[in-house]
């Protein structure tokens, strides 16, 4: 059973066109939801950690929010340099030391 599902798989935006990426999860007893950015051929770069429903974190044009079943990564007025794959990972009370990663959303921002 998939623990983390990300949607959409791919997203193309015009520069300045705001949108949201979704990460839904099914782990029991969430012990952290983590957002990463991954550029081609590179390792994931940590962006945010969210621990409880209602929590929000912001960094530049990115804002992450969390509910009891999903998280959103909102991208406001994106720029071409925001193009990357965004990964979501969760850790639950029954997952031990393991993070469960989604397959990511590939974002392309067109100038």
């Amino acid at each position: 059973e998939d623990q983390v599902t990300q949607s959409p798989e791919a997203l193309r935006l015009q520069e300045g066109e705001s949108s949201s990426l979704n990460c839904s999860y099914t782990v029991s007893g969430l012990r952290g939801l983590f957002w990463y950015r991954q550029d081609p051929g590179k390792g994931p770069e940590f962006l945010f950690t969210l621990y409880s429903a209602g929590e929000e974190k912001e960094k530049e044009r990115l804002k992450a929010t969390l509910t009891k079943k999903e998280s959103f990564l909102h991208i406001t007025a994106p720029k071409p340099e925001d193009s990357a794959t965004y990964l979501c990972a969760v850790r639950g009370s029954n997952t031990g030391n393991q993070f469960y990663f989604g397959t990511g959303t590939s974002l392309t921002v067109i100038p």
Partner: protein
Amino acid sequence: SQTIHQWPATLVQPVGSPLSLECTVEGTSNPNLYWYRQAAGRGLQLLFYSVGIGQISSEVPQNLSASRPQDRQFILSSKKLLLSDSGFYLCAWSVRADQPQHFGDGTRLSIL
């Protein structure tokens, strides 16, 4: 600040050959260390993790093994590579299990 190094960046190996990938972390002590494999279109798959020297936990039975000979050194090995071992291998570290994991830039392994 903490940094993580992985090498080599790319590797092409014949089937049946041995493998050794190395990862080192600087700027922290007693980190949790992780090896992942990332296949195209799939999420990161945890292969091994370690909470201390000589302590290795395996998440997926396979052709690979891991060792942690020093506090900040993590090695991924194989005695005989299979075609199915091809992929992008990532090493990561964290302060604790509930803290964010920080990744190296990976090794692209191709098996011929």
